[in-house]
Every structure is written in structure tokens, then in C-alpha cells.
């Protein structure tokens, strides 16, 4: 439904988006995750025909965003970041205007407005001037606008930013609901946001895609980086030696305090040597007061890869300068 190939967007000398490629199939709900300034909005703007790419290509619903811009625009519902609206109108007037420029006739507009008012709970404030609405209400009007023409593809830029916790939950539910009928591609710089809503996540940092997959797959990747923590009481040298020899242990570090040794153990890939460790400690007659597997969180993983990316870029810049 969305196909991006080698997409690059330059702003002057700066590469906002740097040769990214990905595909989103019909019916998927995909999160686009990255820190601020990673290139999320720029990518979405290329996909919605607001900004042309510098190089590479992108197509949405089978139409090239550059050559068949009008066809793409007809099939996409787009909620720009912070949902800019014409504040001098009432919500209903605004939606009516948006329906007109989307080519809906009077009856079509009335039906469409009724439908989105129900979907986005606009009921009470549809006839209020937009400048009187709160941020969350405006966000919903923006979402209603994006849904007006029942688009095949929904592209949402930070749809829950600025909302209160209740509204965030409602919006998430709404998006999940919408995903049953539409292909959804939404951006966010907050991980739990994406984790809660999306089937698949594409992580972008510094204009490049650094990881992609379902939250479970990403977690699996992290599991490679998980560690065991054990606290053992016994003679330091022996403890280290015995535990290093346990099958499945790749490396370990030890911190000692009052005869207790806090061991941070890196297991071999795909192994969990907790049971073996327990047996060794028991056979030697030492004491054990903690033994646990520490799984890195998606959050940590996210911070880690985005930091790596930033470092890498700094390095490249330094090279380029010298």
C-alpha cells in the first residue's frame, strides 16, 4: 500500500531523510518511531505529496507521489502534526469545506460528516468555532477531516501529541479500530505509543532506518542483549572461576561488597544458564540471594540505537571535515 525506495530529502546541505526504503502492506498498522528531528515528518510529507523528494521514489495506494499526486491525495487521509485548522470557521463548516475540495457532493458531505462526528466523538462541539476548541478537540477535528473521504491509507503525524491521558487512550482505541478498515501509518517519538497501537514498527534516526519489525521481533533482538544478575557469597576467585566455567556463560563481571559478589553475566546467544549456575552454587555450598534475567526494554533499545546512530553521524562528519 505504501512503497518507499531509496528516498532522500535534502534541505540545503542537510540530509533530513537519507536513502530510506520500506514497504507497508494493505491493512497493516505501522508505527514510525524516532527521536525529534529524525526525519519522520519529512518522510510523511513526501508520502502525502506536500514536499517532493530529492531522490528515490515513493508510491501510495499504487500511485507515484510525484507523477500522480492528485490520485494519491484522493486516497490518503493525512493528519499533519499538531492538526492545523482554519480557526475562523466552525468545525462543521471546516469539514464541509474539506468535503467540497475532496469532491463530495452535498449529500455525500452530510453523510460523511455524520459518520466522522460519530467516529471521533465530535458530537458536542461540532458547531463550535474552532478557535474555542481545546488542543485535544482540534486534534479530533483534524482526524475527522482525515477520515472524511474514507481513505484507503491513513497517515497520522504524532496523532496523540498534546492530548491528556484519557484522550490518548481513546485515540489509541480509535486508531486500532480504524486499522480494521484502513492501512495506517503513524509517527511518534514516544515508544509506548507505538507499542500500544501498532503491529509493526519502523525506527528511524538521523534520517536512516535503524530497525524494523513487530514489537515482539524487536524484543527478540533485544533479548540477545539481555544479562543475568547473580549475587553469590563465597571466596571471590573461586566463585568467578566456577561460574565462568558454567556452560552457556559468555563473560562475566564481578563487584564485591562484604563478601557478596554481584555478578553480571552475559549469556551465550540463545542460552539461559540460570539453572546451571544455581546447581554450581549449591554443590559448592555457597549462598545465593539473587538470580534473575534482565531483559532490556524496548525503550532502552530505542535509546541505544538512536544514540549509536547519532555517534556514527558525528564520526562521519569529523571524517568529512578532516
Amino acid at each position, binding site marked *: 500500500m505504501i512503497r518507499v525506495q531509496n528516498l532522500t530529502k535534502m*534541505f540545503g546541505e542537510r540530509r533530513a531523510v537519507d536513502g530510506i526504503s520500506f514497504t507497508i502492506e494493505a491493512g497493516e498498522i505501522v508505527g514510525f518511531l524516532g527521536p525529534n528531528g529524525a526525519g519522520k515528518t519529512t518522510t510523511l*510529507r513526501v508520502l*502525502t*505529496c*506536500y*514536499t*517532493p523528494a530529492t531522490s528515490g521514489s515513493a508510491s501510495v495506494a499504487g500511485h507515484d507521489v510525484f507523477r500522480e499526486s*492528485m490520485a494519491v*491525495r*484522493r486516497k*490518503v487521509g*493525512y493528519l*499533519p502534526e*499538531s492538526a*492545523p*485548522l*482554519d*480557526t*475562523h*470557521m466552525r468545525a462543521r*463548516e471546516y469539514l464541509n*469545506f*474539506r468535503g*467540497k*475540495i*475532496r*469532491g463530495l457532493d452535498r449529500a455525500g458531505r452530510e453523510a460523511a460528516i455524520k459518520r466522522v462526528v460519530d467516529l471521533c466523538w465530535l458530537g458536542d462541539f461540532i458547531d463550535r468555532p474552532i478557535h474555542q476548541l481545546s488542543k485535544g478537540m482540534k486534534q479530533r477535528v*483534524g482526524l475527522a*477531516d482525515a477520515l472524511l473521504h474514507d481513505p484507503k491509507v491513513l497517515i497520522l503525524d504524532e496523532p496523540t501529541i498534546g492530548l491528556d491521558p484519557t484522550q490518548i487512550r481513546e485515540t489509541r482505541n480509535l486508531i486500532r479500530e480504524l486499522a480494521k478498515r484502513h492501512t495506517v501509518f503513524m509517527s511518534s517519538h514516544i515508544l509506548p505509543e507505538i507499542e500500544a497501537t501498532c503491529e509493526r514498527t519502523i525506527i528511524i534516526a538521523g534520517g536512516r532506518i535503524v530497525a524494523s519489525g513487530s514489537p515482539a521481533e524487536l524484543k527478540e533482538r533485544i533479548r540477545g542483549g539481555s544479562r543475568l544478575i547473580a549475587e553469590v557469597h563465597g571466596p571471590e576467585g573461586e566463585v568467578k572461576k566456577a561460574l565462568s566455567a558454567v556452560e552457556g556463560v559468555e563473560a562475566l563481571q564481578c563487584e564485591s561488597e562484604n563478601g557478596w559478589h554481584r555478578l553480571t553475566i552475559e549469556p551465550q546467544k540463545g542460552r539461559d544458564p540460570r539453572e546451571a549456575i544455581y546447581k554450581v552454587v549449591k554443590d559448592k555450598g555457597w549462598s545465593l540471594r539473587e538470580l534473575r534475567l534482565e531483559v532490556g526494554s524496548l525503550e532502552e533499545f530505542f535509546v541505544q540505537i538512536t544514540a549509536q546512530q547519532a555517534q556514527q553521524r558525528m564520526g562521519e562528519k569529523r571524517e568529512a571535515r578532516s
Partner: protein
Amino acid sequence: MRNVAALTQRELAASFLSPVAYIVAAVFLIATGYLFMTHTLVEGEEAAIRPLLDGMAWLLVFALPLLTMRVLAEEYASGTIEALMTAPVTDVEVVVGKFLGVLVFYVALLAATVVHVAVLAAYGALDSRVVLYGYFGMILLGALYVAVGVFASSLTRHQLIAAIIGMGLLSLFTLVVDAFAGWQGGTWRVVLGYVNILRHFGDFSKGIVDTKSIVFFLSGTAFFLFLATKVLESRRWR
């Protein structure tokens, strides 16, 4: 075409809801009333419509950019341009819709000045041809001014700057070239004379319809709308 109609309607609604438009309209009407009293109703002279129209053409150099400054600059500043230009409307439709919206507001404003004509008609024999051609010219002139104003508004996200650019451009093609043409001779005089908006308008207020002047106004309008479209297009790349 339906898009243009929808955009025009939206623009017109925005004008009628904007305090700036009402202030500009009020000041313009007070000023034309003053012109009517001091230049048309002069004791001992024949009351003529011409000085009123010429005066209005001059006033509009400053009034119309204040009406057009909003049209695109506000969209840039508030970000609504993104919602607009990701909807299935072309850049040309956006520019033309905005142009027509302000033009309709201007024509409504112009209609209010017909009251002066009614006063003249009530007290004397009116040359209806001069009035008709004069107002026809006013509409053509207004269209060109609005097009220049829309172009100015396409250049910046700051409404005040858009207004100043619009006034600057219009002054250039009216007051400045008028002054320059007085000092220059030869080819320069011809060139400056051709781009002088007020000289072309002078024919209409005298009650003459010159095809050359009609072509001048229409092509000028189209030219500035074309420029505004190009600017709008080019902003996408930045």
C-alpha cells in the same frame, strides 16, 4: 472548477469575518466620501465622477494589499497550507480561489461607492457612459491590484511584510513610474508609460474603452497570478 468555487467561498467568508477587512473597508469608504466632497462637489465647477475614480485608484494602492496580505501568508504561518496542499487541489486552484475571494469582497466594497453616483444622478444629468466605463475600469484595476497582493502574500509568512511588498509593488507601477516618466525621455518614457497602471486607468475614468488597456489589465492580472502559483510551487521544495 468546483474546487475554485469552494476556495473562493472560504476566502470570502474569511474576509467577511476579518476585522482587518472591515477596518480597511471603513477607512476606504470614509476616504472616498471625503474625495467626493472635496474633488467632485466643487462649488462653481461641473461635478464630475472622474476625480473620484482617479482618487480611488490611488487609495487602493494602499487599501488592497491590506485585504490580500492575509491570503497565503496566514496559511503559511498557521500551517493550514499543509492541510490544503495535501488535499486534491492544484496550486493554480488555490491561487485563483484566493484571488476571486478577495476580488468579490472588493467588488462589494466598490458597490458601496455607487452611492456617490446616485447623489450626482439625483441632482444633475449624469454621463452614464463615463460611470459605466469608469466602474468597469475600477474592476479591472482592482483585479490587477488583488493579483499583485496575492503574489506579495505568497512570498512570506508575515502578513505585514506581505502588505508592505504589495504596496511597494503597486506604488512602483503607479506613483513611482508616473514621477519617473516626467524626468525621462525617449524609449524609457514609452516603457514606463506602458507599465503605468494609472495611465491605463485614466482612459476608463475619461469614459474611453481602449482594448490595449483592457489587455494590459487582464494580462497583468494573469501574470501576477502565474507568479504567485510559481512561488507557491517552489515553496514545496524548501
